[in-house]
């Protein structure tokens, strides 16, 4: 970060705001993971960090390194694409495992399996 001081004020400010916003969303997501009631509700909370949270951090990173190196840095687009493609896989795996167990144990109020599976 040796060149960070050379950034113009508007750029430093927007990078800082974007970073804080992204970190704040990740924090709110983590708080939600603690606070929300059931498993199915808790699974929603971390998606704050994996969508707009990571988005803000990535835009901040693109802005910062593009200005410091005075050329377009676009690596971060790739991170965004890979995160968007892979998070549904994890979430589906977790929720389907929970749903499967809840249906077998009959504990939590979950919908019955569709007709073709019965």
């Amino acid at each position, binding site marked *: 970060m040796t060149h960070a001081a050379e950034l113009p004020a508007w750029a430093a400010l927007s990078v800082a705001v974007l970073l804080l916003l992204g970190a704040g*969303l990740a924090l*709110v*997501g983590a*708080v*939600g993971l603690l*606070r*929300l009631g*059931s498993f*199915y*509700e808790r*699974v*929603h*909370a971390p*998606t*704050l960090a*994996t*969508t*707009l*949270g990571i*988005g803000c951090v990535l835009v901040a990173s693109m802005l910062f390194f593009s200005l410091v190196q005075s050329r377009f*840095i*676009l*690596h971060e*687009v*790739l991170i965004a*694409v890979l995160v*968007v*493609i892979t*998070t*549904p896989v994890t*979430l*589906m795996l977790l*929720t*389907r495992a929970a*749903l499967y167990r809840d249906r077998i144990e009959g504990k939590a109020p*979950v*919908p019955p399996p*569709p*007709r*073709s*599976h019965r």
Partner: protein
Amino acid sequence: MRRFLPHPLLALFLLSAWLLLMESISPGAVVLGGVLAVGGSWTLASLASPRARLRRLTVLPGLLGDVLVEVMRSNYAVARIIVHPADGGVRRSGFIYIPLDMRAPYGLAALACILTATPGTVWVDYDSAEGTMLLHVLDLVDEAEWVHIVKERWERRLMEIFE
């Protein structure tokens, strides 16, 4: 063409990913990226996954724009629910079954990405025999409204692209 490049879209994605990582479009990077892209699409072909066909790409920019707006809106909504849990009285979360007309596998995958990328909705299950998708919604006010949102806002345009 098909035998040489079984999955042109994947090859294009791999090539652009490689060029992004290398941050150059020098002949060397393009050649190496091209070899990787062709090899990657052969690998996928040997896994016998279905081919993607893109039809009307004209609706794509509008769709991506709507996704971006919806991501921001629902991030705010879910953050508010977490920070002020008591706001707006009793909040109800729950499951809903949504009957889908789309059968294209990559269209369904794209729909899953969109629904997961908008906080507050999680794609739970999909029954390919009946074409019903099970969705979990954090703030479930009106079930019919959600069916309408998923079908009208996302599914219709994804069908135009993928089917």
